[in-house]
């Protein structure tokens, strides 16, 4: 593959799409598929064929169109129309409307695209999501795909690439927030011939589906980002560790890798440079702890996914003891735009210490459930009340949970906090990978704390004592509280044990397991007190 060929594919694919009078894009991410998108697409295809409109109307399967709760979603280009909750029997009416015949009562409801849910979004990671067919490499190339890889390989030194990423201020999107450029530079500087790049797609936080959406909507972007990372750190072998619960994402990734191989965008001497690169997929088997990097490495090596003490960090001694770069899906998905537009451009978005945008999965008791991408620094209030449309049925927000089982609950009176790594940490929660769960006035915070503790005790790998035995005791103490059998001493014990598990656990899972309890204790202590036995 050389530049001419790449540009030719880009132009022919663009022309192929432009030729059509209307383009009907159907969301085929997991959410819409579960709501019955498949039948809608089948009907669309049959109907278009039946009416001899194949030359004029194009029906494509695309990735996530964001508003998951209202699926199946269909977008009409160039009309800027988004239909929601489309039923297979409404397909005829949609096609009629494309032909200028109005058949209003049979049309599905149109979504208001000027609503803050769409208007406040700033897609960078999701720029292609919902625009291209995730199973077509040509579609990705038509949006400029793989041009940045070529640019990097032929016109930049590995050091230039790392510099650009450092300049962008990008921080790890898996939740830790470690500066990506620094991580890359560390791995790049490590001696040794054999290095690895790993993509962490083990998105285990309950209530989070950002990475799933990215992989289902635009898999090539992640592959290109990984290839650029591999070039920058001097690796030529990489792994994507993805959870088995995401079969569609796995399928699309496998297909994308095959296509890239066929085009010579993966393999040896890519773009006739000396750079060789290959990606293997490793499928997890249901263990949340494998999101922790050392546990993930153990799992890639085919072992029990138990973490080991750090240091040494994977950058020094990772997969099979070699220097290894591990980043999360969203981090890699940010690389292509950073290289394309420059680190300075990226750094101009967001806040002082948190640059760029962040994808959130907005769920729970909120009107608009779905996927959003907003600049860092957007306030939680704006996300929940404007973008999310607030709690349904005139309910009120009680708390917003971020960071999954490692995070905490932000109470309603602190909703004006901007989403940033540091500001959230100050509140006793974390940015996490991007799950944002809204809880209404009827939610019992003690039960939520117990819910997360149940999760942690079940997901603890069992290696270290505080996490294995401590989470079990914490769960029992919370149950005792909920059953109104606990007294003040139990509450003191709960707090002391939380602190102990937090300070002494071996890995991130244990260290953060008490966070949901500690943060609810901080903001909703009265709920704990009212549950105490009146003695």
């Amino acid at each position, binding site marked *: 593959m050389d530049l001419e060929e790449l540009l030719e594919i880009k132009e022919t694919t663009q022309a192929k799409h432009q030729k059509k009078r209307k383009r009907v894009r159907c969301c085929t991410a997991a959410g819409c598929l579960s709501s019955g998108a498949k039948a809608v697409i089948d009907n669309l295809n049959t109907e278009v064929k039946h009416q001899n409109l194949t030359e004029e109307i194009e029906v494509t399967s695309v990735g996530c169109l964001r508003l998951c709760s209202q699926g199946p979603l269909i977008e009409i280009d160039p009309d800027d129309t988004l239909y929601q909750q489309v039923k297979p029997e409404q397909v005829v009416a949609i096609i009629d409307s494309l032909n200028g015949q109005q058949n209003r009562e049979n049309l599905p409801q149109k979504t208001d695209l000027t609503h803050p849910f769409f208007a406040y979004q700033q897609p960078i990671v999701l720029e292609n999501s919902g625009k291209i067919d995730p199973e077509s490499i040509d579609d990705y190339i038509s949006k400029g795909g793989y041009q940045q890889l070529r640019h990097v390989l032929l016109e930049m030194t590995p050091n230039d690439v790392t510099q650009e990423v450092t300049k962008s201020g990008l921080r790890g999107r898996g939740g830790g927030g470690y500066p990506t450029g620094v991580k890359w530079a560390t791995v790049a500087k490590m001696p040794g011939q054999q290095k690895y790049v790993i993509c962490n797609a083990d998105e285990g936080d309950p*209530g989070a589906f950002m990475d799933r959406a990215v992989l289902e909507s635009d898999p090539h972007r992640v592959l290109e980002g990984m290839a650029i990372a591999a070039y920058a750190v001097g690796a030529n072998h990489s792994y994507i560790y993805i959870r*088995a*619960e995401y079969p569609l994402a796995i399928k699309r990734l496998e297909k994308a890798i095959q296509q890239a191989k066929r085009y010579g965008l993966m393999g040896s001497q890519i773009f006739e440079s000396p750079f060789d690169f290959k990606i293997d997929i490793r499928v997890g*088997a249901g263990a949340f702890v494998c999101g922790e990097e050392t546990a993930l490495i153990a799992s890639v090596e085919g*072992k*029990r996914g138990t973490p080991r003490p750090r240091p040494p960090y994977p950058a020094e001694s990772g997969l099979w003891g070699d220097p290894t770069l591990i980043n999360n899906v969203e981090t890699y998905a940010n690389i292509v735009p950073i290289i394309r537009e420059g680190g300075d451009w990226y750094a101009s978005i967001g806040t002082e210490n948190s640059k760029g945008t962040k994808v959130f999965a907005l*769920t729970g008791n909120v009107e608009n459930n779905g996927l959003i991408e907003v600049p860092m620094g957007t306030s939680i209030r704006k996300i929940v009340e404007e973008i999310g449309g607030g709690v349904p049925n005139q309910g009120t927000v009680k708390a917003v949970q971020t960071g999954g089982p490692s995070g905490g609950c932000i109470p309603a009176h602190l909703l004006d906090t901007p989403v940033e790594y540091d500001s959230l940490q100050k509140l006793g929660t974390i940015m996490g990978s991007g799950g944002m769960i809204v809880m209404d006035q009827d939610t019992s915070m003690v039960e939520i704390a117990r819910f997360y503790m149940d999760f942690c005790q079940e997901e603890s790998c069992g290696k270290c004592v505080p996490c294995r035995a401590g989470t079990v005791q914490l769960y029992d103490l919370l149950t005792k509280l909920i059953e109104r059998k606990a007294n003040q001493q139990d509450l003191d014990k709960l707090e002391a044990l939380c602190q102990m598990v937090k300070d002494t656990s071996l890995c991130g899972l244990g260290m953060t397991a008490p966070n949901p309890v500690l943060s609810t204790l901080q903001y909703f202590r009265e709920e704990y007190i009212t549950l105490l036995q009146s003695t």
Partner: protein
Amino acid sequence: METRTLNKKPQNHQKIDKRPDKRFKVIDITMKRNHYRQDALIEILHKTQEAFGYLEPDILEYVAHALKLPLSRVYGVATFYHLFSLKPSGEHTCIVCLGTACYVKGSDRILATLQQELGIQSGETTSDNQISLLSARCLGACGIAPAVVFDGEVTGKQTPENALKTIKIWQEEE
């Protein structure tokens, strides 16, 4: 405290002739494709479970020998990951998502209803081997919470009532 001497039936060491079984071929091919690399154990267990439905001790032993891995190591890996099952599952499976978004929207009530109806706990199979009830920690289908997977098909916005309806249909099939 209850202490009980390990009193397992002697292992079934009368090796069944495994060669003619087509399913073993699937495992053999997978192992070959992975060059019998020990680090491919999880991939191979995935394929094995696909072929056999669950991971029987005899089959684990077969894999361990082929990859030259210690038996206890293979058993350790197979039991560490929740998606591997060492017991056969029922004709139908129903997985209730207990991820946070689903939980907030009442999936715990769905699970409770199903447990009561079927008379089993999550993770168990009905005595007639018809239905296995399981729970999951987030399927990533939070946008359509609460989600339940019936025989591999993810369905969203479930209520205890309509989940029960699907189960009833299964029961009537018998």
